[in-house]
């Protein structure tokens, strides 16, 4: 079985990798590129812990083949903070205690960032529906929703 050579851009950086034909983008990110921020929860697209964007579109990286990333722009949780400067969503997650064990957090942050890019002023209902594909077994969701709403407010006021 020959490996596939893939040229892509991850968080703005041109990146090349070799992958097996059946290797998922999530496995490539974690096992080959050392980007372990994206988590594997279910591996079947149900939990959202592996959320990334591909060409600006929010997807589960466990349901994308590495080979499909050829020529694409991928954004992961590793690209969210700018150096030491946390993204407003990350800050508000800490301030609102919107995480406990933290496994779902990277996926939720990536999904919430995508929400605010599509809709800078979402209602609570829109926020809950958008994040319905991100499962959290610790928080009960309320703190997550409050943190996303607060970050959205801050980002609107800053722009």
């Amino acid at each position, binding site marked *: 079985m020959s490996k596939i050579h893939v040229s892509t851009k991850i968080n703005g950086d041109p990146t090349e990798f070799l992958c097996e*034909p059946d290797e998922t983008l999530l496995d490539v990110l974690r096992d080959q590129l050392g980007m372990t921020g994206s988590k594997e929860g279910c591996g*079947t697209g149900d939990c959202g812990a592996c959320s990334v964007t591909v060409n600006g579109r*929010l997807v589960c990286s*466990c349901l994308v083949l590495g*080979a499909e990333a050829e020529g694409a722009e991928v954004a992961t949780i590793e690209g969210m903070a700018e150096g030491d400067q946390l993204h407003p969503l990350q800050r508000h997650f800490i301030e609102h205690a919107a995480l406990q064990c933290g496994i779902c957090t990277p996926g939720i942050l990536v999904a919430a960032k995508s929400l605010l890019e599509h809709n800078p002023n979402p209602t609570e209902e829109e926020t809950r529906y958008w994040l*319905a594909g991100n499962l959290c077994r610790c928080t009960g969701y309320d703190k997550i929703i409050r943190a996303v709403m607060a970050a959205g407010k801050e980002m609107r006021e800053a722009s």
Partner: protein
Amino acid sequence: MRYHAPATLEAATQLLGSDLGDCRILAGGTDLLVRMRSGFAEPDNILDIKRIDGMRDITAEDGGWRLGAAVSGAEMGEHVGLTADWPGVVEAAGLIGSTQIQGRCTVVGNLCNASPAADSVPALVAARATARIAGPNGTRDVPVEDVPTGPGKTSLARDEFVASVFLPARPDTSGDAYLRFIPRTEMDIAVVGCGLSLTLDGDGTCTDACVALGAVGPKVIIVEDAAKALMGTKVDEAALDALAAACSAAATPIADKRGTVEFRTHVSGVLAKRAAKIAASRAGA
């Protein structure tokens, strides 16, 4: 396993017809990759169709819309013209999975996966959509309801795949809707689904209708008596009751943990009635 990403329809059908072994089509991957992961599919080859021209395009054609086989649910929902012309089809596709799944899932995949409970299929059937099938001798168009033949089974030959679906033109005074019953608020599989498209004339009389039920038979059911119950009426209560009765009579559900035969039979009529009201208001009634 080998991964192929050909650039033309011809190269794709040639690969499908070759002796490389079992080959599965990859568009959004939201069914295929799950099946591979859980061991239900172990293909020798994967054929990614997304690099073929037109597969990711929504194109205006003869007053209707052609959807490439790799167009995602999210792309459909963001398309203003398509959403204005076929809101029922777009809302049916939009019900599939989470935001992440919407970023990848396709109506053509939904059709070819041939689940009896596929949400977008009753809406496509009610829209009288056609599927364009690419094969070794070029393409052929068939009504979408002829693609699935039963749970997990399609009429496609080994060297064929669906390249696009076409939603035809219809008069401005038309509307469509899709409703499903699930026990949660979202992200679930339809217990019953109903797609309905209708056209009204100047004084609000129904001149054309098509009603399709999902999840109450091995494949989607077109209920001709339900369409007849609407045609020639002003979609009033009596017509809606006749529509509901026709749908309940046509439903042939199984009982499982998600719903009994009696419940699904009843809900078939209820959903049809509600979908007809929405479609009629979208048609301008």
